[in-house]
């Protein structure tokens, strides 16, 4: 696959926000990530796909600085502002917290800033509502609003549509697109929704403990490593995408995805 590594080298250095270089991470005795290379440039949308336990969240947590790699490096551009939307945020029922107060963490914000951020993600009027009383979709929007309060250069979202129904997640992706158009922030996200990933990403990274393959959505979708991981027929959305876009058929039975995913 000559195109696979096309985006790795040779970009203008001022454009680069994050460089992950041969990073390996152990979680306990488990090798969660080995020799991962990844770069994120200004304004692009990079999506990470991969099966459960493939190290997607671990990779994101290394980039925000929550985990230290055992070897290799994570380089963030000096002064890089990151907006982060975690996969799960459970607020203890004993903590009284309105959406507006949540947006004021950890930096105090004015009422106007809060209203603007809420409006930007289509969550007007939720400011005075307790976080515990928000619906799944409202909650995710408020998380997104908080992530953009800082006017981040890079927005990192870890499966932002977890727990949302189809229309709800479609809405949220529209909002994320909107945020990128408004702010020009780069977006790094983990997603399960492959049809969305394939239509909206500039680049896709297919991860399974290591980078199986990466590149433009078209390149990744046709890579054998990717098919080995996702071509088992259980992902209707992808089948739909394939059907619409490249008319290839895929075989069933690649259960041992890890073994067939060999490119580094």
């Amino acid at each position: 696959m000559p195109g696979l590594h096309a985006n790795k080298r040779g970009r203008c250095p001022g454009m680069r926000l994050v460089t992950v270089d041969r990073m390996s991470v152990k979680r306990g005795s488990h090798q969660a990530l080995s020799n991962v290379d990844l770069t994120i440039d200004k304004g692009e949308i990079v999506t990470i796909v991969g099966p459960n336990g493939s190290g997607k969240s671990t990779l994101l947590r290394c980039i925000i600085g929550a985990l230290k790699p055992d070897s290799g490096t994570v380089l963030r551009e000096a002064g890089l502002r990151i907006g982060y939307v975690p996969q799960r945020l459970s607020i203890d029922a004993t903590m009284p917290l309105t959406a507006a107060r949540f947006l004021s963490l950890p930096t105090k914000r004015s009422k106007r800033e809060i209203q603007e951020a809420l409006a930007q993600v289509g969550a007007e009027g939720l400011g005075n509502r307790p976080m515990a009383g928000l619906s799944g979709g409202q909650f995710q929007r408020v998380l997104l609003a908080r992530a953009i309060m800082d006017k981040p250069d890079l927005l990192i979202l870890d499966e932002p549509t977890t727990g949302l129904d189809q229309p709800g997640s479609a809405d949220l992706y529209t909002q994320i697109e909107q945020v990128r158009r408004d702010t020009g922030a780069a977006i790094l996200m983990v997603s399960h929704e492959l049809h969305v990933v394939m239509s909206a990403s500039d680049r896709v990274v297919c991860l399974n403990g290591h980078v199986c393959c990466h590149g433009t959505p078209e390149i990744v979708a046709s890579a054998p490593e990717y098919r080995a991981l996702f071509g088992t027929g259980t992902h209707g959305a992808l089948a739909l995408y394939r059907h619409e876009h490249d008319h290839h058929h895929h075989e069933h039975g690649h259960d041992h995805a890890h073994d067939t995913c060999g490119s580094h």
Partner: protein
Amino acid sequence: MIMPMTPADPTDMFDDFLIRALFAGVGVALAAAPLGCFVVWRRMAYFGDATAHAAILGVALSLALGVSVFAGALAIALAMALTVSNLSEKGFGVDTLLGVLAHSALAFGLVAVSFLQGVRLDLMSYLFGDILAVSKGDLIVIWAGAALVVTLMAWRWQALLTSTLNRDLAYANGINPQREQQIMTLALAIVVAVAIKVVGALLIVAMLIIPAAGARAMARSPEIMAVGAAALGALAAVGGLMASYHLDTPAGPSIVCVAAGLFVVMTLAARLRSK
């Protein structure tokens, strides 16, 4: 209503033991309030118990060595809190670990106290507090400790709230949640050290969580909850002392009983209001 004044000596109202007790109780309540909120939000009640029980061992050691009880209790409580904090970072079964540490610290403390000879030690006063025996010196230590804790909490408030919500959220904002946890640990050890004489090692956690839990019912923001906890705690201290004075009951437990009563009232009132 009893107002214990000492008109005979207008120069120093702190000559009255009841006034000293009132100030000691209110001081502890103020320090415990913001910290207690975090203990509730982070579900650290058992953590608090382990720290408070360890303080008994600290008391025994300081009496044996002839150093200040505050210093001994603070040192051992801090050592225990840091141990628990570090072990739980490493992923030990936290609940079991805390159970082991909390109870063994208490047992070792009690055994250590029994070894002390020639020291007249009323063990009950360190287990359940002896607020009526608070001296002027104690009062200064209590208020200095309370001021330190409240300052620490106010300084780290936003960062602590963020790390309490979600560690990764904190990291993404450049906050190190481990450091915040250490600051909480330090604050907890200070509260234990200053509260041991007021409510005793066994009931310190009650002063942390009951006022905070009572304030939760009516609070709409973390700040209101902390202020409410301070108000309820102070009210419990004053009410408990008066009850103790009139009914001749032990002061520390009386304070906690009043706090528990306030908790019930607040929770029921909130239920009624929301109907």
